[in-house]
Protein backbone atom coordinates (compact mmCIF):
# COMPACT_ATOMS: atom_id res chain seq x y z
CA UNK A 1 0.00 0.00 0.00
CA UNK A 2 1.62 3.27 -1.07
CA UNK A 3 1.29 6.61 0.71
CA UNK A 4 -1.56 7.89 -1.48
CA UNK A 5 -3.72 4.84 -0.87
CA UNK A 6 -2.94 4.97 2.85
CA UNK A 7 -3.99 8.63 2.98
CA UNK A 8 -7.20 7.75 1.09
CA UNK A 9 -8.00 5.06 3.65
CA UNK A 10 -7.37 7.43 6.57
CA UNK A 11 -9.31 10.18 4.83
CA UNK A 12 -12.36 7.99 4.36
CA UNK A 13 -12.22 6.62 7.89
CA UNK A 14 -11.88 10.04 9.52
CA UNK A 15 -14.45 11.77 7.26
CA UNK A 16 -17.09 9.09 7.63
CA UNK A 17 -16.59 8.98 11.41
CA UNK A 18 -16.93 12.78 11.63
CA UNK A 19 -20.04 12.77 9.45
CA UNK A 20 -21.65 10.09 11.60
CA UNK A 21 -20.78 11.99 14.78
CA UNK A 22 -22.22 15.32 13.54
CA UNK A 23 -25.32 13.64 12.13
CA UNK A 24 -25.98 11.86 15.43
CA UNK A 25 -25.54 15.11 17.36
CA UNK A 26 -27.94 16.82 15.01
CA UNK A 27 -30.42 13.97 15.26
CA UNK A 28 -30.34 13.88 19.06
CA UNK A 29 -30.48 17.62 19.74
CA UNK A 30 -32.60 18.70 16.79
CA UNK A 31 -35.50 16.55 17.94
CA UNK A 32 -36.37 18.87 20.83
CA UNK A 33 -36.61 21.83 18.43
CA UNK A 34 -38.81 19.93 16.02
CA UNK A 35 -41.18 18.63 18.71
CA UNK A 36 -41.65 22.27 19.73
CA UNK A 37 -42.15 23.40 16.12
CA UNK A 38 -44.80 20.75 15.50
CA UNK A 39 -46.63 21.56 18.75
CA UNK A 40 -45.76 18.29 20.47
CA UNK A 41 -46.60 16.08 17.46
CA UNK A 42 -43.76 13.64 18.16
CA UNK A 43 -44.26 11.18 15.27
CA UNK A 44 -44.15 14.06 12.78
CA UNK A 45 -41.12 15.61 14.50
CA UNK A 46 -39.29 12.26 14.41
CA UNK A 47 -40.15 11.80 10.76
CA UNK A 48 -38.89 15.27 9.74
CA UNK A 49 -35.83 14.82 11.93
CA UNK A 50 -35.02 11.54 10.23
CA UNK A 51 -35.50 13.03 6.76
CA UNK A 52 -33.21 15.95 7.61
CA UNK A 53 -30.51 13.57 8.83
CA UNK A 54 -30.77 11.48 5.67
CA UNK A 55 -30.26 14.64 3.59
CA UNK A 56 -27.33 15.59 5.80
CA UNK A 57 -25.69 12.17 5.27
CA UNK A 58 -26.26 12.26 1.52
CA UNK A 59 -24.74 15.72 1.07
CA UNK A 60 -21.76 15.08 3.32
CA UNK A 61 -20.90 11.59 2.15
CA UNK A 62 -21.40 12.80 -1.42
CA UNK A 63 -18.93 15.61 -0.81
CA UNK A 64 -16.47 13.25 0.91
CA UNK A 65 -16.48 10.86 -2.01
CA UNK A 66 -16.28 13.62 -4.66
CA UNK A 67 -13.32 15.18 -2.87
CA UNK A 68 -11.42 11.93 -2.44
CA UNK A 69 -9.10 12.21 -5.45
CA UNK A 70 -5.85 13.91 -4.57
CA UNK A 71 -4.77 14.87 -8.11
CA UNK A 72 -1.09 15.14 -7.33
CA UNK A 73 1.68 12.80 -6.30
CA UNK A 74 2.54 12.14 -2.69
CA UNK A 75 6.02 10.77 -2.18
CA UNK A 76 6.50 10.44 1.54
CA UNK A 77 4.64 10.31 4.85
CA UNK A 78 4.99 14.06 5.46
CA UNK A 79 3.29 14.96 2.20
CA UNK A 80 0.70 12.28 2.88
CA UNK A 81 -0.18 13.81 6.24
CA UNK A 82 -0.32 17.30 4.72
CA UNK A 83 -2.66 16.12 1.96
CA UNK A 84 -4.77 14.25 4.49
CA UNK A 85 -4.95 17.30 6.75
CA UNK A 86 -6.08 19.53 3.87
CA UNK A 87 -8.78 17.07 2.81
CA UNK A 88 -10.07 16.45 6.34
CA UNK A 89 -10.02 20.20 6.98
CA UNK A 90 -12.24 20.76 3.95
CA UNK A 91 -14.63 18.08 5.16
CA UNK A 92 -14.77 19.74 8.58
CA UNK A 93 -15.52 23.14 7.07
CA UNK A 94 -18.26 21.67 4.87
CA UNK A 95 -19.69 19.79 7.87
CA UNK A 96 -19.61 23.00 9.90
CA UNK A 97 -21.37 24.90 7.12
CA UNK A 98 -24.02 22.19 6.80
CA UNK A 99 -24.46 22.11 10.55
CA UNK A 100 -25.09 25.84 10.78
CA UNK A 101 -27.40 25.62 7.78
CA UNK A 102 -29.39 22.96 9.64
CA UNK A 103 -29.53 25.13 12.76
CA UNK A 104 -30.76 27.99 10.58
CA UNK A 105 -33.52 25.78 9.18
CA UNK A 106 -34.52 24.65 12.68
CA UNK A 107 -34.70 28.19 14.03
CA UNK A 108 -36.55 29.39 10.95
CA UNK A 109 -39.13 26.63 11.27
CA UNK A 110 -39.53 27.43 14.94
CA UNK A 111 -39.97 31.15 14.24
CA UNK A 112 -42.49 30.52 11.48
CA UNK A 113 -44.43 28.16 13.73
CA UNK A 114 -44.55 30.75 16.51
CA UNK A 115 -45.89 33.35 14.05
CA UNK A 116 -49.06 31.31 13.48
CA UNK A 117 -50.16 31.94 17.06
CA UNK A 118 -48.77 35.48 17.32
CA UNK A 119 -51.30 37.93 18.78
CA UNK A 120 -52.21 41.11 16.84
CA UNK A 121 -49.36 43.63 16.83
CA UNK A 122 -51.46 46.55 18.06
CA UNK A 123 -54.41 47.04 20.41
CA UNK A 124 -57.73 48.03 18.82
CA UNK A 125 -58.80 51.70 18.93
CA UNK A 126 -62.40 50.83 19.72
CA UNK A 127 -65.03 48.12 19.54
CA UNK A 128 -68.13 48.24 17.42
CA UNK A 129 -71.08 45.92 17.05
CA UNK A 130 -71.04 43.61 14.04
CA UNK A 131 -74.26 42.67 12.33
CA UNK A 132 -75.10 39.16 13.46
CA UNK A 133 -72.77 39.43 16.49
CA UNK A 134 -73.68 40.96 19.82
CA UNK A 135 -70.25 42.11 20.99
CA UNK A 136 -70.22 45.58 22.48
Amino acid at each position, binding site marked *: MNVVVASYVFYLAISVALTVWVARTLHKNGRIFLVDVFHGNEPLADSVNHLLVVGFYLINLGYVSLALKLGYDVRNAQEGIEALSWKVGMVLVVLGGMHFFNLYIFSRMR*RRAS*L*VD*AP*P*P*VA*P*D*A*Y*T*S*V*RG*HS*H*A
Partner: protein
Amino acid sequence: MRELTVLYDPQCGLCRRAQAWLMSKPKYLELVFVPASSDEARSRYPQLNHSLTLTDLTVISDQGAVYSGPKAWLMCLWALRDYREWSLRLSSPELLPTAKRVISMISQNRYQLEGLGSVILKGAK
Protein backbone atom coordinates in the same frame (compact mmCIF):
# COMPACT_ATOMS: atom_id res chain seq x y z
CA MET B 1 -59.85 35.96 15.04
CA ARG B 2 -60.63 34.39 11.65
CA GLU B 3 -61.52 37.32 9.47
CA LEU B 4 -60.63 40.99 9.06
CA THR B 5 -62.88 43.40 7.22
CA VAL B 6 -60.97 46.16 5.46
CA LEU B 7 -62.90 49.38 4.86
CA TYR B 8 -60.94 51.01 2.06
CA ASP B 9 -61.31 54.16 0.02
CA PRO B 10 -62.46 53.04 -3.46
CA GLN B 11 -61.77 56.53 -4.90
CA CYS B 12 -58.02 56.17 -4.44
CA GLY B 13 -55.93 54.31 -6.97
CA LEU B 14 -53.19 53.57 -4.50
CA CYS B 15 -55.72 51.90 -2.20
CA ARG B 16 -57.12 49.78 -5.02
CA ARG B 17 -53.64 48.66 -5.94
CA ALA B 18 -52.83 47.94 -2.31
CA GLN B 19 -56.04 45.92 -2.14
CA ALA B 20 -55.08 43.90 -5.22
CA TRP B 21 -51.67 43.27 -3.69
CA LEU B 22 -53.15 42.15 -0.36
CA MET B 23 -55.55 39.82 -2.15
CA SER B 24 -52.74 38.17 -4.09
CA LYS B 25 -50.70 37.25 -0.99
CA PRO B 26 -51.06 34.06 1.09
CA LYS B 27 -52.82 34.80 4.37
CA TYR B 28 -53.24 33.53 7.90
CA LEU B 29 -56.79 34.85 8.06
CA GLU B 30 -59.43 35.97 5.62
CA LEU B 31 -59.44 39.59 4.43
CA VAL B 32 -62.81 40.95 3.31
CA PHE B 33 -62.75 44.24 1.39
CA VAL B 34 -65.71 46.58 1.72
CA PRO B 35 -65.72 50.13 0.28
CA ALA B 36 -65.69 52.66 3.13
CA SER B 37 -69.00 54.32 3.93
CA SER B 38 -70.85 52.12 1.42
CA ASP B 39 -74.31 50.69 2.11
CA GLU B 40 -72.70 47.36 2.82
CA ALA B 41 -70.31 48.89 5.35
CA ARG B 42 -73.19 50.74 7.02
CA SER B 43 -75.34 47.65 7.31
CA ARG B 44 -72.46 45.55 8.64
CA TYR B 45 -71.44 48.09 11.28
CA PRO B 46 -74.48 50.16 12.26
CA GLN B 47 -72.76 51.85 15.22
CA LEU B 48 -69.53 52.84 13.49
CA ASN B 49 -68.70 56.46 12.67
CA HIS B 50 -68.46 56.00 8.91
CA SER B 51 -67.23 59.48 8.09
CA LEU B 52 -63.96 58.62 9.87
CA THR B 53 -63.47 55.56 7.64
CA LEU B 54 -63.24 57.85 4.61
CA THR B 55 -60.17 59.66 5.93
CA ASP B 56 -58.35 56.69 7.47
CA LEU B 57 -58.10 53.08 6.44
CA THR B 58 -60.16 51.03 8.90
CA VAL B 59 -59.90 47.34 9.71
CA ILE B 60 -62.50 45.56 11.83
CA SER B 61 -62.11 42.07 13.24
CA ASP B 62 -64.93 39.53 13.27
CA GLN B 63 -65.26 40.32 16.99
CA GLY B 64 -65.79 44.03 16.31
CA ALA B 65 -62.34 45.32 17.28
CA VAL B 66 -61.73 48.50 15.26
CA TYR B 67 -58.24 49.45 14.08
CA SER B 68 -57.80 52.68 12.19
CA GLY B 69 -55.03 54.50 10.37
CA PRO B 70 -51.52 53.05 10.83
CA LYS B 71 -52.87 50.32 13.10
CA ALA B 72 -55.15 49.14 10.29
CA TRP B 73 -52.17 48.89 7.94
CA LEU B 74 -50.23 46.88 10.50
CA MET B 75 -53.22 44.55 10.92
CA CYS B 76 -53.30 43.99 7.15
CA LEU B 77 -49.62 43.04 7.22
CA TRP B 78 -50.28 40.81 10.22
CA ALA B 79 -52.85 38.87 8.18
CA LEU B 80 -50.26 37.99 5.52
CA ARG B 81 -48.07 34.92 5.89
CA ASP B 82 -44.99 36.59 4.48
CA TYR B 83 -45.38 39.87 6.38
CA ARG B 84 -46.61 38.92 9.86
CA GLU B 85 -43.05 39.09 11.12
CA TRP B 86 -42.76 42.61 9.69
CA SER B 87 -45.98 43.71 11.36
CA LEU B 88 -44.61 42.54 14.72
CA ARG B 89 -41.25 44.18 14.05
CA LEU B 90 -42.80 47.50 12.97
CA SER B 91 -45.06 47.57 16.02
CA SER B 92 -42.16 47.26 18.48
CA PRO B 93 -41.84 50.32 20.75
CA GLU B 94 -38.68 51.43 18.88
CA LEU B 95 -40.19 51.37 15.40
CA LEU B 96 -43.89 52.06 15.97
CA PRO B 97 -43.63 55.90 16.09
CA THR B 98 -41.69 55.99 12.83
CA ALA B 99 -43.98 53.44 11.20
CA LYS B 100 -47.01 55.51 12.23
CA ARG B 101 -45.47 58.70 10.83
CA VAL B 102 -44.56 57.10 7.51
CA ILE B 103 -47.95 55.42 7.12
CA SER B 104 -49.86 58.61 8.01
CA MET B 105 -47.78 60.55 5.52
CA ILE B 106 -48.50 58.06 2.73
CA SER B 107 -52.15 57.96 3.69
CA GLN B 108 -52.58 61.74 3.69
CA ASN B 109 -50.93 62.07 0.30
CA ARG B 110 -52.49 58.98 -1.21
CA TYR B 111 -54.10 60.76 -4.16
CA GLN B 112 -50.83 62.45 -5.11
CA LEU B 113 -48.85 59.24 -4.62
CA GLU B 114 -51.02 57.27 -7.01
CA GLY B 115 -48.54 57.39 -9.89
CA LEU B 116 -45.57 56.56 -7.72
CA GLY B 117 -47.45 53.79 -5.91
CA SER B 118 -48.39 52.05 -9.12
CA VAL B 119 -44.72 51.82 -10.03
CA ILE B 120 -43.74 50.47 -6.60
CA LEU B 121 -46.52 47.92 -6.41
CA LYS B 122 -45.90 46.72 -9.92
CA GLY B 123 -42.31 46.06 -8.90
CA ALA B 124 -43.43 44.24 -5.75
CA LYS B 125 -45.64 41.84 -7.72
